[in-house]
């Protein structure tokens, strides 16, 4: 089908964008269009105003600020995937992006757009949750920062108010150092490569010189309406020997999750798949942190 009629706006500065968001009723921001355009064409969205942010200055690009890596909301998924900064400091983001759609959708789709759209199966908001990233938000009333844990407020629902936009996402990479070596793991199951995941999992660990786990973060996606961190598993792993650690013995919290069901995948299967994905991602993270895997 064809998109419904709307009034098109094309601001070029953040101030113009904030002013438009502050004054227009029933307006939608258009980023890469890889989720919003299908919704318009399928007539699932009827905005009166479409605000195209593709020409707003300063929203695209990857910057290193001290320890942090700041990904502009309008940075294309293809550019994050190709970034040498990301490859070096946030390699799991690139690994995850290889599972996101196809080259044509990554040419346009943006990192911020995925985080705002918040599909429960999307890899990008899950990466933000994994790293406890911070979302820099701008509105007519000014700026604020939202912690990753507060970003998703429900199914397809971010913490953005109607008159706010996402400017950038700030990641603090885990670096190797005196306190140990870091590794990541990523596992996802989808029916075909490039499809949204049925279940996916990403893990980060740090293993110290003595071979003990010093820090861990694990996130599931595609399981609950928002990315799911696993604090009990993370805590249980601390101080344990990397060599003998088996995450499968610490998955009580997975039984308590409010697992989604759909026509293809029931909750029993999805929960089982979650356990398998956790096992794979955690094992890969440990293998990388101990040098057993590149």
């Amino acid at each position, binding site marked *: 089908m*064809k*998109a419904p009629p709307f009034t*098109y706006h094309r601001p070029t500065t953040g101030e113009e964008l904030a002013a438009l968001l502050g004054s227009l009723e029933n307006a939608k921001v258009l980023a890469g269009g*890889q989720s919003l355009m299908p919704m318009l064409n399928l007539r699932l969205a009827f905005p009166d105003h479409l605000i195209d942010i*593709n020409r707003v200055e300063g929203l695209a690009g990857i910057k290193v600020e001290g320890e942090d890596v700041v990904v502009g909301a309008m940075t294309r998924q293809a550019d994050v995937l190709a970034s040498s900064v990301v490859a070096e400091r946030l390699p799991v983001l690139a690994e995850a992006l290889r599972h996101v759609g196809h080259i*044509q959708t990554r040419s*346009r789709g943006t990192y911020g757009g995925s985080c705002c759209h918040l599909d429960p199966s999307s890899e990008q908001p899950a990466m933000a949750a994994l790293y406890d990233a911070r979302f820099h938000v701008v509105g007519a009333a000014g700026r604020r920062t939202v912690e990753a844990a507060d970003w998703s407020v429900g199914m397809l629902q971010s913490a953005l108010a109607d008159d706010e936009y996402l400017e950038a996402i700030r990641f603090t990479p885990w670096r190797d150092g005196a306190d140990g070596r870091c590794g990541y793991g990523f596992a996802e199951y989808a029916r075909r490569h490039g499809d949204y995941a049925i279940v996916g999992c990403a893990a980060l660990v740090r293993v110290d010189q003595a071979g003990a786990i010093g820090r861990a973060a694990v996130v599931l996606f595609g399981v609950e309406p928002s990315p799911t961190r696993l604090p009990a598993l993370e805590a249980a792993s601390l101080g344990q020997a990397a060599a003998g650690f088996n995450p499968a013995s610490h998955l009580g919290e997975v039984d308590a999750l409010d697992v989604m069901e759909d026509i293809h995948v029931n909750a029993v299967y999805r929960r089982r798949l979650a356990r398998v994905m956790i096992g794979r991602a955690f094992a890969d993270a440990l293998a990388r942190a101990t040098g057993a895997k590149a």
Partner: protein
Amino acid sequence: MQQPLVITATINGRPVERAADPRMHLADFLRHEVGLTGTHVGCEHGVCGSCTVIVDGRPVRSCLMLAVQVDGAAVETVEGLTGASGSLSRLQRAFSEHHALQCGFCTPGMLMTLEALLRTVLNPTETDVRDAISGNICRCTGYQGIVEAALTAAKDRQGEPA
């Protein structure tokens, strides 16, 4: 409803100026306003890849871009692959040699996706090719001929001056 907006773009190397409703997507603009019907429209929601064109050097789904968004951009469609005399490109000839099309509906999207791949990856593997066309659905060929055609064209291109 908003009045049509004027779009100035370069399409297959030629300057084009046309007005379009803001809600018109790029594939409809190319087909109905510019008269380039080589770009096909299958699903109109981003899943089939038949509408793939190249915008500013990158392969995109033209059903998921508004025509007004290419204002000032360079757009390449399947019509731009052929030479001035209408001669087929190496990739197009390889499609014919390897029986990489039957009904032809997916072909323009396959060609533009692979054209973009071959420009950036000089020596693609079979995996690279399959990964590139993972977002293009073909109901006829079973993909094998398409993959062979792309690999053949890539090999021949390496011999050509850039």
